[in-house]
């Protein structure tokens, strides 16, 4: 574990260095389609936190008295396995998936550079990154079956002599590190890359190349299991879906094809076997928290009042203008370091509370093993964090697709008769947003506490010890939930 952390630290340092070199102008960050939500008022926040606390104790209380209430562990009916060949529908879906990737790339390269008028920005950042992820959480991981990069690699393997069999002797020893590194680079690009249609296309081309090289180097299956981070992100979210049947017929032949399971119980079917997957899940949490916090005024104050005065003398030189440019640069580096280190901060807190749980229950299992056992139960909290932060964007900007499909490159086309329409963004009243945000965060919290408790019942011999183990984890989840609510309530910094 120690060695792994060291290798992560090296990766971070290298990545920061590359990011500093590659950083375009260091003006204010301007994300595509910034969210329009206002900070949640204190009363909502206080209510949410109090409700989370009460509900948590209700769950623990219910379990302590009626531990057999493991509703999620009900066996599900298995359907007979099916033939492992893709049907016409799936082939068509794969073609559409690749076509959409190509449209995004081409449109960004030759179409308008107005982010709102080029289909690639809205399709990739909103429909794919948000819409597909949320759909997968509801209907299951269909992305695995239509992953455009996988389809492309498969196609190349079929028509050329290149065999993506892998050149690395033991790709499984890389675990999920490749995916984690790519995921971090992706979030950096999302928050600080200030992508325009053209640069998004370049990023997609580079990512396509990375997928080919990765599949060649690690082997096709290993790469799309441990390297292509969207595949891992979607797979984790898909585990929450009540629809248990894999969309990919090959996968179906391997794992059986039962259809339904209790919602969220899929997360207990799999265990995180390595710290890299735990960090991946923690980064899902921490990157969203970071996105929420990095534009707020308390966060800016922390740097300008708490850190900058101490480090400024180290760099003091030159004119006021140079000094100003330098301080802006330092602020950015601070932001990037905070983003990249955030999962390690979450990891430290998480491991601390798991260690307390071990101490309380006098478990013979190691802290590391216990930490991995509870990793999947964090996915619902990470998911609701994500949804509360971004669902408004999906509605306000996602609806612009109606117009964009007719005029994808902003050239005045009107393919489907909707190109000249002004589509009013679908916006929800801020009060309704506050209610849904608090409700969603509470819901995710309850599900996570519930899943962790089911896991504990499997680990510990008696319900009593299981309940005892849950008290520290409950405090931990309360912290994550309250932090999530708190971030939603922070005043935003000035400017857009």
């Amino acid at each position: 574990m120690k060695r792994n952390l060291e290798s992560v630290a090296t990766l971070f340092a290298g990545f920061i260095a590359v990011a500093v070199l590659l950083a375009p102008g260091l003006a204010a960050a301007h994300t595509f389609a910034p969210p329009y939500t206002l900070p949640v008022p204190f009363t909502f926040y206080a209510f949410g936190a109090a409700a989370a606390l009460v509900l948590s104790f209700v769950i623990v209380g219910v379990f302590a008295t009626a531990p057999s209430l493991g509703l999620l562990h009900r066996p599900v009916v298995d359907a007979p396995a099916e033939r492992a060949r893709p049907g016409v529908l799936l082939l068509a879906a794969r073609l559409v998936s690749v076509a959409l990737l190509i449209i995004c790339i081409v449109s960004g390269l030759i179409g308008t550079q107005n982010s709102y008028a080029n289909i690639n920005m809205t399709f990739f950042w909103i429909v794919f990154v948000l819409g597909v992820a949320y759909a997968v959480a509801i209907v299951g991981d269909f992305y695995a079956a239509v992953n455009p990069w996988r389809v492309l690699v498969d196609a190349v393997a079929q028509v050329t002599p290149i065999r993506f069999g892998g050149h690395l002797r033991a790709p499984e020893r890389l675990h999920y590190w490749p995916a984690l590194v790519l995921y971090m680079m992706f979030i950096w690009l999302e928050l600080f890359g200030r992508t325009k249609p053209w640069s998004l296309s370049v990023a997609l081309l580079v990512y396509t190349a990375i997928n080919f090289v990765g599949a060649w180097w690690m082997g096709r299956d290993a790469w799309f299991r441990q390297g292509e981070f969207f595949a891992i992100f979607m797979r984790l979210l898909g585990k929450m879906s009540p629809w248990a049947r894999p969309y990919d017929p090959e996968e179906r032949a391997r794992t059986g094809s039962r259809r339904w399971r209790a919602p969220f119980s899929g997360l207990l079917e799999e265990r995180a076997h390595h710290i890299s997957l735990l960090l991946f899940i923690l980064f899902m949490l921490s990157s969203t928290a970071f996105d929420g916090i990095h534009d707020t005024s308390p966060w800016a104050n922390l740097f300008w009042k708490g850190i900058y005065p101490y480090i400024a003398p180290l760099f003091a030189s030159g004119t006021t203008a140079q000094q100003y440019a330098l301080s802006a640069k330092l602020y950015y580096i601070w932001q990037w370091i905070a983003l990249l280190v955030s999962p390690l901060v979450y990891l430290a807190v998480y491991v601390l509370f798991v260690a307390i749980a071990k101490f309380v229950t006098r478990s013979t299992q190691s802290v590391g093993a216990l930490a991995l056992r509870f990793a999947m139960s964090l996915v619902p909290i990470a998911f609701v964090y994500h949804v509360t932060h971004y669902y408004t964007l999906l509605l306000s900007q996602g609806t612009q697709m109606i117009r964009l499909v007719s005029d994808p490159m902003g050239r005045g086309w009107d393919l489907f008769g909707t190109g000249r329409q002004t589509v009013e963004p679908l916006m929800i009243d801020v009060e309704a947003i506050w209610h849904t945000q608090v409700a969603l965060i509470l819901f995710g919290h309850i599900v996570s506490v519930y899943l962790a408790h089911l896991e504990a019942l499997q680990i510990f011999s008696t319900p009593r010890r299981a309940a005892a183990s849950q008290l520290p984890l409950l405090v931990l989840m309360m912290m994550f939930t309250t932090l999530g609510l708190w971030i939603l309530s922070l005043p935003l910094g000035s400017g857009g």
Partner: protein
Amino acid sequence: MRNRLTCAFWLASLMLGPLPALAADPAPIELAVVKGQVTGGAKVIRLKRDDPVSLTITSDQADELHVHGYNLHADIVPGKPSTLKFIAKRTGRFSMELHKSGVELGTLEIYPK
């Protein structure tokens, strides 16, 4: 007689009713852009739902004003103030910018009542 008085009272209160709201109208927003910089820096302007908004921009360059979320546009002629008037029907946080130069003018924060 009493009935008539009551009627008059209700009528008067109907007419007077909206007056306090009118009196509480927020001040018009006036911004000036010189050499791609907003005089006094980008601002956060806080309003309540249904407030009437009057937004006047003067710039030394031709440009186009855009209020996000409301999707309102106004052409800007150099040196001439251009004004957008609308009712703050939508709650939320919306940025105002000049489309061509990309200058951030500030943010409108419209809160529920």
